[in-house]
């Protein structure tokens, strides 16, 4: 009757969660390429990049659905089910944001004003850094399970989360800078374009915020 003993093991959520985060980061890092192409005014490349983003977002959605389907209520886990579901929801916001941003830019054929291009790219890059750091913390998830959420590994993840916080602080500062730059340029640009540029800056900043929230969720998970 060996066949049923194995069934008492539910599917571990760890590997799918990590895989999902990889997709999320990939989508975030594609945003850098996307804006490079926008600035170079190379709209074929922009479309290509957008295609990649949409595909990554779809893949992330599928993984999310898969994870949620597997986390059935009868599972007994070292981590509360709700916290894991929250984590995957927050992670999933990143590719969603990236998709929204890229959709908006393409739909309106937006241009980044020359004077703020460098700092804008820096701002985008820092948000991608935040997503990358979030991915690093999620990559430690299997080690956390291995050690039963205790000891040295816990300190390591704690350190990663505070680094993530630091990066998110940077993105906030950069966001403030870039907004004031845009404010300077406001009068020279069509009002509608300016409105949407503010919107893009805000959405891009949300990528960093979401990365930080991944850290917060993980903090909750390991504090149990």
């Amino acid at each position, binding site marked *: 009757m*060996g066949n049923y003993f194995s069934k008492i093991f*539910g599917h571990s959520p760890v590997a799918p969660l990590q895989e999902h985060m990889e997709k999320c980061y990939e989508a975030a890092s594609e945003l850098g390429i996307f804006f490079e192409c926008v600035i170079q005014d190379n709209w074929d490349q922009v479309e290509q990049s957008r295609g990649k983003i949409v595909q990554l977002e779809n893949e992330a959605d599928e993984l999310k659905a898969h994870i949620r389907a597997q986390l059935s209520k009868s599972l007994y*886990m070292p981590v509360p089910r709700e916290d894991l579901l929250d984590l995957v929801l927050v992670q999933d916001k990143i590719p969603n944001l990236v998709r929204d941003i890229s959709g908006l830019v393409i739909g309106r054929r937006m241009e980044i004003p020359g004077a703020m291009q460098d700092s804008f790219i820096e701002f985008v890059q820092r948000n991608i850094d935040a997503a990358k750091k979030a991915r690093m913390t999620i990559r430690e998830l299997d080690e956390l399970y291995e*050690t*039963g959420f205790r000891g040295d590994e816990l300190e390591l993840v704690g350190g990663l989360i505070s680094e993530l916080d630091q990066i998110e602080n940077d993105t906030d500062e950069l966001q403030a800078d870039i907004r004031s730059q845009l404010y300077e340029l406001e009068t020279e640009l069509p009002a509608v374009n300016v409105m949407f540029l503010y919107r893009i800056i805000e959405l891009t900043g949300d990528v960093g915020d979401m990365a930080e929230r991944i850290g917060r969720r993980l903090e909750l998970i390991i504090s149990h």
Partner: protein
Amino acid sequence: MDATLIYLTLAGVFGLFMAWGIGANDVANAMATSIGSGALTIKQALIVAAVFEFAGAVLAGGEVTSTIRKGMVDSAVFADQPDILIFGMLAALLAAGTWLYLASRNGWPVSTTHSIVGAIVGFAVVGVGFDAVQWGKVGTIVVSWVVSPLTSGIIAFLIFTSIKRLILVRRNPLERAKRFAPIYVFFAVVLIALVTILKGLKHVGLELTTLQSYTGAILCGLLIAVVGKIAIDRIPIDKKANRRFHYHTVERVFAVLMVITACGMAFAHGSNDVANAIGPVAAVISVAQEGVVGQKAGLPIWVLFLGGAGIVVGLATYGRRVIATVGTQITQLTPSRGFSAEIAAAFTIVLASGTGIPISTTHTLIGAVLGVGMAKGISAINLGVVGKIFLSWVITIPAGAILAVIFFYLFKIFFG
């Protein structure tokens, strides 16, 4: 004389069928974790299982066989009607075998032990009378079905918690693992060897003094701990490797221990479960040969060999596939977890075998897995399935009993 031969043949065939079924299906649970973790190949696991199941059956299987053979029904009731006991035991064997066959065909979780106990109690109550059952003993057995998963669960919890505290959460888990692993091996082997020597060996005709028993057990422990240490020291360590690889190597240290627990589990399983198949056979043999219900007659050792051989044949013919399937499905039981669960289960089972109580090895193992889960060791346990498995004996006992009653009356009509 003719009838005796028929009874013996039937008992032998039914008993072998049961033993074959146990070897084909049940053993997988005991061996699969070692294969899943890559500690053993399937071929090696089959060899380990064959050797240690057999050893467990012969060296430590005597007490449980005695319980099944004559502990649960009052032989005095059968003194003037020995045929009834023969029919009953044959019916019980056939009932348990049939039920196991039906259940595994349909994928229902059942316990060999529960079905044979249900079958024996069933034929005794309906075929003979309420008083024919030794209710005290049967009560103990039923209580043990609750106590054994609980015990193994608690032991597994403690073992895994200690592994966590002493090794996994430390800054240098690999060095700690290498230092502590042989100590775990030592205690595991000493405990299992001790129970076996104290409780099992008298059926083989070996009588040892207490001092000899303890010395023997400790020597066994030391010997295997040294072998384990040598094996662990041979694991290569990449000093430049990162943390990720660090834990990987820690698990490889535990993989060495998994080889030892695989032996322990196979031994424990043999010591407890082989009795389900050969206990009734032994009962039939002693009555059929002597023509009376002998209270004193000893257990012929060759019957234990028969059971052990049946299990090995089951393993060789069908068990390979089951082990391979289960092995790939339980990847969550990494060596450190698998070691904790298996050693706790093996110890509990051998302890029960020593006291002659037939328990379900799978339930005990599941109890141990839950214990590791409680210690935050397993990323997801499906409690729905666990509940189903634990409740399955509620169905298995009456099912075994009803089938046994039917077969009992059939035998009575045919031979009586």
